[in-house]
């Protein structure tokens, strides 16, 4: 009944079927006209002076982040919120001063490219939002023009005060006050899926005084003033007063139709626009999901700090040496006279070496800025977007039934998918389909319904019983073609029930099922009747009743009509049950009843509810089948079925009832804190002395592939917690069914359903209960912990119920509890509320300090999804709210396996490798500059031509890294799934551990040393060509740079595990690009190309020494890492190495 409980708040609206609305003005209504309640709407007078003077916003909606005017400044501002970008901007600005070691444009160019790319990406995203806005703004709706006709008007032109007509299946263009509808009583049905994710229909009700305003003439003359609250984000509240014909009428949310919801089951309605555009409740609600950052990104920030410190340190060392060297020039004979220390600038002033050293420090910060990879952020972003596209495109995660692919709603969490330590899952709708199927029932002590549920099959397997294949397979394919109905029993079906011994009980039983609910029938085009209800259980009941022969086909304010089989005549007759009262469901009551008057004029109380509350309410003579029914219920819930007890009571149509009814109506319409208590007391008075009819069993079907998926995830070492609203028994059984609880696992159950606690509850002393409960929970946790500590070889499953959880999350206990929970392989929290789900998620996140993933489908999972590191929404039957707040959405739970084990693993690996490699390549490059400085007396002269350097990150080394970040796979998808343990590489963060990061950095330094010293010693001092020419500054720079480009690209080739033509193209293409660049850049006039002019073509290319040196340097630089890898793979293989080897 979890579903029903969740919806209880909305069920209350159904009371309007029978009882009056609140009439009196509440406290809030008194505040109208004051601050916060100042809105005034002149109905049907949108063009009047008074309305225009108020200057309310129009209905134009814009959800874009930028406008055409502010795009450039705002997006630039966004970009420079990143520290690294600010650093680069400062560098670029300073680079136009004489401080700069190289020319300004060459520094600015990469920054412009990098930031331009990011801004372009922002722009494209915003453009998509904009086109959606345009679509919404240009939808049309009929607006009354004041002269007696309705005109089609675009949404964006609607203003406050307009009177609009909305037709069936149209969205409401703004927040409207419902005036009247097709129906005389002014009701209409709306679907609020876009608001709260609930697919069921809600009833809205116009004020009586306005419900007759329907004809054009009456509309024309309709004038009224609404004073109401200011725009706010509360979807379920509204305070306002309607001034109409000199009278005041209080308005409630009942009369408000919200933008974003849809008109259903009603041909048309008339409404007055109250809130428009951004003032509407849905727009006021629109807040982006909380932005989440991944672990890797956080580590990356630390690496940036390390690099910044390295940069400062290196610059400082350089400046000190530079200062000393410069000071030496200050002698009588001017030391290095060729530098003219006598006529110098402040930057090289040997008389003020401290100042010179300080200025040099700034220069050095710029020079060694290459240690910090400018394009890292943008490269990572590009990679992640492409990775998301791959996730979206993956056919393995495409659900053919619903035609829904997986969707990465945010691209920045991809690699986090590879590090999930705990999965917190909702049960209903996530593990199970949430399509309830009526499978069994127990009527008059006889169990009906054959076939086995999946849980039963699993249970039987667990017990080692032999399963009747015929029965087992029977359930595999849903019975017949009727959705929601999998009941087979020839004793009941096809009207056979009349021959059963207790046929009268059976008749009553199905009558209760057909009438005691809040479902609304809807006739489809094919003539079939489908039901819409707040809970899927009720739909299943209505369908079951229909299939057996009690077809519920019409409902209105006062009654319910059934087609029934008359057992005496065998004919189908229509019967009208007058619906007098609905005693709604609530989680406290755990039962629901209706009071009806049947065609025989009998007054009946029909009821269904949880076994725990129903059995104690049976009358003395109503307990005939109690024992058998209890037994059956036991068996059903063991089989993972949801059970309800069905009972009825005949009411005496006397003064006693009348008195009760009076009291009840009064309580219903009363306003005050004690209203609910009063209602509870009254319903309690009448809901007793039931006569037991039987019990129903509804199966919440497991989703396809759930058990095997959970098994895989468990084998990948991921802990799975199930947080469900179900009761303990059901939860445990579902646990077995989806192999969360496995054979040989020991269960630790923490519960407060203990005799001593219950005894206390009867006494009602709240403090005593709390203390006792806390003690009891603590004791149970300690017991559990000691069990776990004693036997380390057995796996444990922890089951805790919501009430105990409340105490276990107490400050003093939480540590102990989490400690126990962490040592259990499976944790099931049953009977937990949405809030508890979110709290548990937060706790798991903070206690384990590892990645948590929450998966759910309903609006009750939103808290959990937003709280977790990664939120996954199942885009199932329960609307889109979970999906809207999630980071990834999938159509079925089983796709989680593919999402985590394949995409998660790949993305983690890719990003981790990419970042390490990025730092490597920049350190390898940046440090060659430093070594060169050491030989240029730290004067700040870069070793390379300015444009070589600025192209380094953008052209010669970026594409292969991106290819690595997007395409690399260590093992194929199939192998990922075959070897789930591979996933542990991500969970244990092996590929992005500090050792590995520092290792790569060290390798970068080592590479730079190798490159610098091998190159300098090989090509200088002697002639480096056979024609006697020596290598000068430009030749050395070019050679060294060539070595760097070759090395980092070949290093990349060594790290890639997966070579498609793309990798080949990018890696070898980057190298080729460098040589092409040399040719092109070297052939433009020397005033532009400066030191690069013809160096390659004239000096280097003809020199064998140049090529030989390049070859030697590349091999020598790659050798350390290659050898390390070779030995490591052979003697200390990691998981993926081993799997790669098995592939051979």
């Amino acid at each position, binding site marked *: 009944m979890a579903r029903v409980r969740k919806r209880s708040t909305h069920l209350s609206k159904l009371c309007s079927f029978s009882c009056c609305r609140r009439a009196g003005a509440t406290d809030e209504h008194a505040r109208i006209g004051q601050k916060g309640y100042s809105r005034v709407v002149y109905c049907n007078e949108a063009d009047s002076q008074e309305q225009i003077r108020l200057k309310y916003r129009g209905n134009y909606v814009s959800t874009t982040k930028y406008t055409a005017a502010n795009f450039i400044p705002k997006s630039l501002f966004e970009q420079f919120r990143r520290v690294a970008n600010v650093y680069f901007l400062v560098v670029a600005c300073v680079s136009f001063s004489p401080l700069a070691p190289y020319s300004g444009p060459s520094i600015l160019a990469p920054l412009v490219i990098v930031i331009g790319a990011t801004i372009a990406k922002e722009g494209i995203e915003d453009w998509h939002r904009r086109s959606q806005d345009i679509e919404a703004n240009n939808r049309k709706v009929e607006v009354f023009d004041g002269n007696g006709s309705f005109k089609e008007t675009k949404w964006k032109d609607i203003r406050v005060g307009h009177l609009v007509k909305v037709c069936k299946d149209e969205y409401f263009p703004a927040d409207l006050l419902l005036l009247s509808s097709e129906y005389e009583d002014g009701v209409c049905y709306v679907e609020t899926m876009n608001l709260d994710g609930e697919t069921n229909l809600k009833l809205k009700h116009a004020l009586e005084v306005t419900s007759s305003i329907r004809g054009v003439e009456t509309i024309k003359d309709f004038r009224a003033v609404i004073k109401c609250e200011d725009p706010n984000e509360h979807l379920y509240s509204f305070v306002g007063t309607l001034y109409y014909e000199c009278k005041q009428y209080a308005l409630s949310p009942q009369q408000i139709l919200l933008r974003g919801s849809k008109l259903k089951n009603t041909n048309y309605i008339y409404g007055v626009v109250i809130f428009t555009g951004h003032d509407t409740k849905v727009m006021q609600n629109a807040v982006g999901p909380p932005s989440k950052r991944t672990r890797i990104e956080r580590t990356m920030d630390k690496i940036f700090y390390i690099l910044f410190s390295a940069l400062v340190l290196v610059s400082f060392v350089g400046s000190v040496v530079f200062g000393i060297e410069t000071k030496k020039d200050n002698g009588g004979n*001017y030391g*290095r*006279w*060729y530098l003219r220390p*006598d006529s110098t600038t402040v*930057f090289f002033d040997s008389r003020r070496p401290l100042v010179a050293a300080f200025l040099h420090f700034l220069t050095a910060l710029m020079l060694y800025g290459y240690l910090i990879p400018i394009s890292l952020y943008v490269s990572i972003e590009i990679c992640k977007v492409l990775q998301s596209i*791959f996730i979206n495109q*993956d056919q393995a995660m495409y659900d053919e039934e619903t035609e829904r692919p997986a969707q990465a709603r945010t691209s920045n969490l991809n690699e986090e998918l590879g590090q999930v330590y705990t999965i917190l899952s909702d049960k209903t709708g996530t593990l199970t389909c949430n399509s309830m199927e009526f499978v069994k029932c127990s009527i008059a002590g006889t169990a009906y319904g054959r076939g086995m549920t999946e849980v039963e099959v699993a249970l039987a397997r667990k017990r080692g019983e032999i399963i009747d294949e015929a029965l087992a397979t029977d359930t595999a394919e849903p019975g017949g073609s009727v959705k929601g109905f999998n009941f087979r029993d020839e004793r009941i079906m096809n009207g056979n029930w009349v021959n059963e011994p207790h046929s009268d009980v059976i008749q009553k039983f199905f009558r209760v099922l057909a009438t005691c609910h809040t479902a609304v029938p809807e006739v489809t085009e094919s003539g079939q009747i489908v039901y819409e209800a707040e809970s899927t259980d009720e739909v299943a009941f209505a369908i079951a009743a229909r299939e057996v022969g009690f077809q519920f086909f019409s409902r209105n304010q006062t009654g319910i009509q059934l087609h029934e089989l008359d057992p005496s005549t065998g004919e189908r007759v229509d019967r009208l049950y007058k619906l007098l009262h609905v005693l709604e469901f609530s989680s406290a009551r755990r039962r629901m009843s209706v009071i009806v008057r049947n065609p025989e004029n009998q007054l009946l109380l029909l009821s269904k509810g949880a076994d725990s509350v129903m059995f104690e309410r049976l009358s003395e003579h109503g307990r005939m089948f109690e024992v058998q029914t209890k037994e059956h219920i036991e068996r059903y819930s063991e089989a993972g079925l949801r059970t309800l007890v069905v009972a009825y009571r005949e009411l005496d149509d006397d003064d006693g009832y009348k008195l009760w009814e009076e009291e009840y109506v009064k309580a219903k319409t009363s306003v005050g804190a004690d209203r609910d208590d009063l209602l509870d007391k009254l319903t309690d008075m009448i809901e007793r002395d039931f006569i037991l009819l039987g019990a129903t069993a509804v199966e919440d079907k497991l989703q396809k592939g759930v058990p095997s998926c959970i098994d895989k995830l468990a*084998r990948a*070492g991921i802990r799975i917690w199930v947080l469900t609203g179900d009761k303990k028994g059901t939860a445990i059984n579902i646990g077995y069914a989806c192999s969360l609880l*496995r054979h040989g*696992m020991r269960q630790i159950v923490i519960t407060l359903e203990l005799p001593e606690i219950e005894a206390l509850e009867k006494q009602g002393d709240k403090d005593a209960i709390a203390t006792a409960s806390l003690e009891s929970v603590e004791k149970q946790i300690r017991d559990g912990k000691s069990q776990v500590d004693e036997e380390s070889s057995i*796996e444990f499953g922890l089951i805790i119920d919501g009430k105990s959880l409340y105490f276990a999350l107490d400050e003093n206990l939480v540590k102990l509890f989490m400690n126990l929970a962490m040592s259990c392989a499976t944790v099931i929290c049953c009977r937990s509320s949405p809030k508890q789900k979110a709290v548990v998620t937060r706790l798991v996140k903070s206690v384990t300090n590892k990645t948590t993933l929450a998966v759910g489908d309903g609006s009750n999972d939103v808290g959990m999804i937003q709280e977790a590191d990664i939120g996954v929404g199942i885009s199932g039957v329960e609307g889109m709210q979970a999906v809207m707040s999630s980071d990834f959405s999938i159509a079925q739970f089983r796709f989680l396996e593919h999402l985590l084990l394949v995409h998660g693993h*790949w993305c983690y690996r890719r990003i981790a490798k990419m970042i390490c490699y990025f730092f490597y390549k920049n350190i390898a490059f940046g440090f060659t500059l430093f070594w060169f400085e050491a*030989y*240029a007396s730290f*004067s700040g*002269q870069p070793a390379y031509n300015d444009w070589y350097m600025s192209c380094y990150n953008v052209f010669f080394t970026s594409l292969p890294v991106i290819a690595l970040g997007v395409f690399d*796979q260590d093992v194929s998808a199939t192998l990922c799934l075959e070897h789930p*343990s591979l996933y542990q590489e991500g969970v244990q963060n092996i590929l992005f551990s500090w050792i590995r990061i520092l290792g790569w950095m060290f390798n970068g330094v080592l590479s730079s040393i190798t490159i610098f010293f*091998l190159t300098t*010693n090989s090509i*200088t*001092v*002697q*002639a*480096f060509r056979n024609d*006697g*020419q*020596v290598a*000068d*500054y*430009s030749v*050395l720079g070019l050679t060294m740079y060539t070595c760097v480009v070759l090395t980092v690209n070949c290093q990349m080739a060594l790290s890639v*595990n997966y*070579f*498609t033509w*793309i990798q080949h193209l990018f890696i070898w293409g980057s190298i080729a690009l460098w040589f092409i660049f040399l040719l092109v850049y070297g052939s433009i006039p*020397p*005033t532009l190309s400066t030191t690069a*002019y*013809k160096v390659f073509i*004239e000096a280097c290319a003809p020199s*064998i*020494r140049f090529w*030989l040196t390049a070859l*030697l340097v590349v*091999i020598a630089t790659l*050798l350390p890492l290659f050898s390390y890898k*070779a*030995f490591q793979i*052979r*003697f200390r*293989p990691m998981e993926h190495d*081993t*799997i*790669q*080897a*098995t592939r*051979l």
Partner: protein
Amino acid sequence: MADMNRERHRTRETAFYLFTQQSLPACKPVLTPGWVITIFLFMGLIFIPVGLITLRASHSVVEIVDRYDTECVPEAFRIDKISYIQDDSIPKNCSRFMKVHKYMKAPIYIYYQLDNYYQNHRRYVKSRSDKQLLHGQKYHDTSSCQPVELNNGQPIVPCGLIAWSLFNDSFTFIRERAELKVNRKNIAWKSDRDHKFGKNVHPFNFQNGTLIGGGKLNPKVPLSDQEDLIVWMRTSALPSFRKLYGRIKEDLDADDVIVVNLMNNYNTYSFGGKKKLVLSTSSWLGGKNDFLGHACVIIGSSSLILAIVFTLLHLKYRRPYGDTSYLPWSRKSLSG
């Protein structure tokens, strides 16, 4: 044709499908022991011979180096070399003897080598104007030439510190009383002569200031023919560098003694620099440098050693390749 087109279309479609499903045909290199050993052996077998050949080339080069900066200062001035070099009245000529210890085949390259001379200093490197070198006085914006930009309000051509500090020691070579012919043409890069230094640009107002740096230039010769300047202006990469002075077109026999008459004009004394004169032949790999050969041999032999070590370890620790049971987390039972 239509069929073929459709066929092509389909293959393109499947290729795109494979791309989106990340299952493009790919080469997935795995470092198996076989490959590792092969690669190590291969590198060893490549680099050791290459290194040996390189060493041989290096050894075939005959190189004579003579440091003359100290020797060419008269005994009396050895204590204060700076005043010697700065005093124009003292004659700077000096004679050195160089013994050829091995037959040297023409062309023999003459270099001068400077040590501890920071031609790569930022202030120095920047102090030039490529545009002025090409266009002469027509080009006015020579601010980059600071501090040798103007003299007496007149622009200096060529401007800048590099040109101003032009090396001006000169050498003549005598063998058995006959002067050796030294070819001082074509010592600069062709591209420099053709495109970087103007054919119609003549030195102007050069070395006219109070502080004379290095050599002077003949104002009648255009810059594109001032090869010493062009060579000098290709700044060196490191503080020790050689620059080409000329070529001797005659072979030198072993035990020949060459008398070098030089003008020791250039001041390296104030910053403790050294000056050397180098005569060297050239091989296909350029001048004498054992480093490259040694490095190749070292890399090659370490590859060989790694190959051997790897093979031995591989044979010693035999275990089926691809056994997952060695992994740390495989030992824990995760599957239950």
